[in-house]
């Protein structure tokens, strides 16, 4: 029988205006945690129900005995998370869901992340790097301040390109050009994205044109996180048939070519 886990907060730090980083002691979790999987985190104190529901977060870094999350303060759940201090305990449910996959023989991968989606890709970068795969990344955000949070990513990347609204470099056309150049130049085997519908559609097109593999980590609204509530569904096409599947169970990571972006 699985159970939720009370994990000890090791650190919880503000990185930029709205981004925070939290590390937790995960030594009590036996299950292997893979990049792209998520935890449904109860930000409320036990029994306070404020906020009521858990909130899903994918892991930012997966270490031997600790887990790291990068999160953006949006509303009550993330605001509550930001109030925890080292030594506090937080209840997590997970790891849940299907992780990113790296095909046998992959040499070079390209990440396309936007906003907090970058957090989700970071764990993948870490894993790929550790397997000797070269990682390239195009990171998009509103402002440079938002990208500060992703600094850690560069430890695992051969090259990181930043695009922002602030600098007017984040338009789809520009990103397409950058992506295509990177794919061509480095002979990318697979590409992964998270954090933007617009960029997901772009990547879906690119991987078709360029005939490389691609995956997307979706961020649908989740209530239960265990596959019973049907909040988190998305449409996928398989054998020319559209299926509505639960992204907490069959995702959150999907082959990007099968996802129907609404």
């Amino acid at each position, binding site marked *: *029988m*699985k*159970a*939720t886990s009370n994990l000890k907060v090791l650190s919880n730090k503000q990185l930029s205006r709205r981004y925070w980083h939290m590390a937790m002691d995960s030594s009590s979790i036996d299950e292997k945690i893979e990049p792209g999987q998520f935890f449904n985190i*109860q930000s409320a104190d036990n*029994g306070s*129900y*404020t*906020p*009521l*529901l*858990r909130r899903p977060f994918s892991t930012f870094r997966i270490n031997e005995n600790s887990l790291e999350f990068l999160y953006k303060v949006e509303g*009550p759940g993330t605001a509550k998370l930001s109030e925890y201090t080292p030594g506090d305990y937080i209840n997590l*449910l997970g790891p849940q869901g299907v992780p990113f996959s790296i095909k046998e023989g992959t040499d070079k991968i390209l990440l396309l992340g936007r906003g907090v989606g970058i957090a989700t890709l970071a764990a993948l970068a870490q894993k790929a790097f550790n397997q000797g795969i070269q990682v390239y990344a195009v990171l998009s955000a509103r402002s440079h301040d938002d990208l500060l949070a992703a600094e850690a990513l560069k430890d695992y990347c051969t090259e990181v390109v930043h695009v922002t609204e602030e600098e007017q470099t984040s338009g789809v056309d520009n990103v397409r050009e950058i992506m295509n150049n990177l794919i061509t130049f480095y002979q990318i085997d697979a590409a992964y994205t998270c954090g933007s519908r617009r960029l997901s559609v772009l990547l879906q097109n690119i991987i078709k044109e360029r005939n490389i593999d691609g995956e997307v980590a979706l961020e*649908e*609204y989740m*209530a*239960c*996180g*265990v*596959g*019973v*509530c*049907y*909040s988190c*569904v*998305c449409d996928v096409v398989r054998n020319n048939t559209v299926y*509505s599947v639960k992204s907490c*169970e069959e995702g959150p990571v999907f082959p990007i070519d099968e996802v129907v972006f*609404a």
Partner: protein
Amino acid sequence: MTKTDVNLAVDIGGLTISNPIMPASGAFGKGMEEFLDFNLIGAVVPKSITKYPQKGNKNPRACETFGGMINSIGIQSDGIDKYLNHTVPYYQQYDVPLISSISAESVEEFEEMSEMIAGSPDVAALELNISCPNLENNGEAFGMDEDITYEVVHKVRQITDKPILVKLTPNVTNIQKIALAAERGGADSLVVANTLLAMAIDIHSQQPKVGNVMGGLSGPAIKPVIVRQIFQVREVSNLPIIGCGGIMNADDAIEMILAGATAVQVGTASFVNPSVMKDMIEGIRAYMEQYQYQTIYELVGKTMDRI
């Protein structure tokens, strides 16, 4: 003081369950068995089934409000055939009765589906979700009208001797009248109740927070309304009541039992903690030991006597 011998079993209209805690339809299913031993709970109640496969409503399908959540899942369903061929058999591995929740779009469809479901020997009882929209009446829920409630239940009663649970909608002026209509129709038990019709707006996008504009409010916010309705139904009907709405812990379950419920269903709380039903069963047992009650029946509706 010796420990009281506590018996948690109750009868909910011809079906005996080992304890009064069961899941609410739509908030339970495969996926939770990793966190909860299904053999511990009184019954299993899978998500409402529709006749044909259907997709449910558009995203986003849920949002949180203060002390509650609004869901506009709709009934995402693989249809009754798959239900009978996959869902029902799946639950046979557990040693607890299976209650099948049925959603239909017309009285006739309720009949047809009940016939098919009741025909399965592995289904212990039917739950009629009369809170779902009646396409023959402008999409107003069946359970909003006395006569239609009577008709649905009465027609299904002709079809099966299995226990019929009728799940009322709380969105009515007078729940007593609807409860009595269901009783006259032949219900064995009343589930009080489904979700409160609700809406939330994101003030920045100025759009509804759920794709379907409105949805059903569940969670602790609604408990006081449901406790009141249980009490009201108990005042007029002798049918066993299954309380449902906002139960987060054993105390909430006990509150509903004191108000008049014989058993309870747990929805949203399982999203917060997928093994919460186990804690609730233990909590009820502890309460009964503390106050030396031997059976749940000593508690059912007790508040009425205390006034």
